């Protein structure tokens, strides 16, 4: 399996009235998991979407190992190679099986397709849900369908936006287990998450997006740090309001 390393540099995003972040650098590597921390509104989602080629940065360079290229020029490549999973994954009309089928190349024989779908259902612990209407699944089940789609598509780079949001503890653990298996299969992972202790043992590097900058944070002290930092800021903000 070919190893991947994408390095992003000088990433910046500004809106008409506000600068979200500026001059960020980070890299994604096969078999490595990156955790992106930071408060709501710090720009984690925007950053992930830029990494996936979905949202335009104000500035940015990308290096696939053959020299830096402007983000704009490799947007299509990013979209093709990077899989971004929305915080609330989108389910298309139809059954779970049909949603999984979408990730398979067309032209597969029916028996091959059914076999792959069956294995994906098994992989993602979705047994028995094959015929269920995907839009009616729970948050955790939808997350696993979207992971199964990524698995079927054999995505090498996976970005997850709050993968533990809107689900119970058991679903979080199941999601974490699937991510562990993807990591073992040398998929590059990046997670934006508040609520990350379920993913702790999976994470190799932690970055904190705060005030428009990325700070390296050391594991495993980060969670408490983040919580404390956030709490401190809330207190200060509350005081200022008074």
């Amino acid at each position, binding site marked *: 399996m070919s190893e991947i390393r994408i390095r992003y540099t000088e990433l910046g995003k500004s809106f008409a009235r506000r600068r979200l972040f500026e001059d960020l650098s980070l890299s994604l590597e096969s078999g490595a998991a990156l955790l992106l921390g930071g408060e709501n509104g710090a720009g984690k989602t925007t950053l992930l979407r830029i990494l996936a080629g*979905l949202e335009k940065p104000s500035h940015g360079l990308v290096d696939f190992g053959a020299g830096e290229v402007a983000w704009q020029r490799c947007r299509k490549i990013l979209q093709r190679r990077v899989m971004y999973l*929305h915080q609330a994954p*989108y389910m*298309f*009309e139809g059954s779970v099986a049909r949603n999984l089928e*979408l990730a398979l190349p067309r032209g597969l024989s029916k028996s091959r397709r059914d076999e792959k779908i069956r294995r994906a259902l098994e992989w993602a612990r979705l047994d028995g849900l094959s015929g269920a209407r995907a839009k009616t699944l729970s948050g955790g089940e939808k997350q696993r369908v979207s992971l199964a789609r990524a698995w079927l598509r054999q995505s090498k780079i996976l970005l997850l936006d709050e993968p533990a949001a809107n689900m119970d503890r058991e679903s979080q653990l199941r999601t974490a287990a699937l991510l562990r298996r993807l990591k073992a299969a040398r998929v590059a992972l990046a997670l934006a998450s508040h609520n990350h202790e379920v993913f702790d043992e999976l994470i190799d590097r932690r970055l904190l997006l705060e005030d428009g900058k990325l700070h390296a944070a050391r594991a495993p002290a980060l969670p408490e740090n983040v919580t404390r930092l956030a709490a401190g800021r809330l207190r200060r903000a509350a005081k200022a309001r008074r």
Partner: protein
Amino acid sequence: MNTLGAATLEAFALLFRGDAGLWEIIGISFRVSCAAIAIAIPPAVLAAFALAHFEFPGRRLLISLSNTLLSLPAVVVGLTVYLLLSRQGPLGDWRLLFTQPAMVLAQILLAFPILVSMGHAAFQAADRRAWETARMLGIPPARTFFMVVGEVRFGLLAAMLAGFGRIIAEVGASMMVGGNILHHTRNIPTAIALETSKGNFSQGIALGIVLLVMAFVLNMLLQYFQGRGRIAL
């Protein structure tokens, strides 16, 4: 005025006896309006999608334009088509004035703004995630487009019904460009106008009943699909 009661009774008799002339007029109405909707839908859906999905200069202008055209009076459309197709007009050589294709053309123009406007709203309400997810799953843009169309199908169906409702009951443009020719371009609304002017109320009432029943059915369907559209999101 006891003629109203008698005319209404006779109207029901005409409808249920299967009066050939009456049902021919109803058939022409449906044929013309269905053709107009069928032709208008593909370009209207593409336009609505483009307006909702792409950023390009003039986009906002086009959106307000299509919303403005919603209230375009039918007679203005009729006049425009008339002038285009008249023997002295630029398309006079086609010899289409006072034919069904001329009515279809006018009805396309009438339905188009409704289809675009409501279609645009439907696509706007559709989740961006649908498009992004499909693209990241490696599905080519054309197929992704059809998938998104599938996702908002109730909204598009509602647009179609609303457009159909406007053109099937429209009298001004049909009268002007169709000419209300019996067996050829006489449809329900122009026939009602004519029968009333002849003082032949029972035919008018019978056709009016057809339109009323249809308006009712269309509105029921519209409400149903709009409800479905909301749940499906």
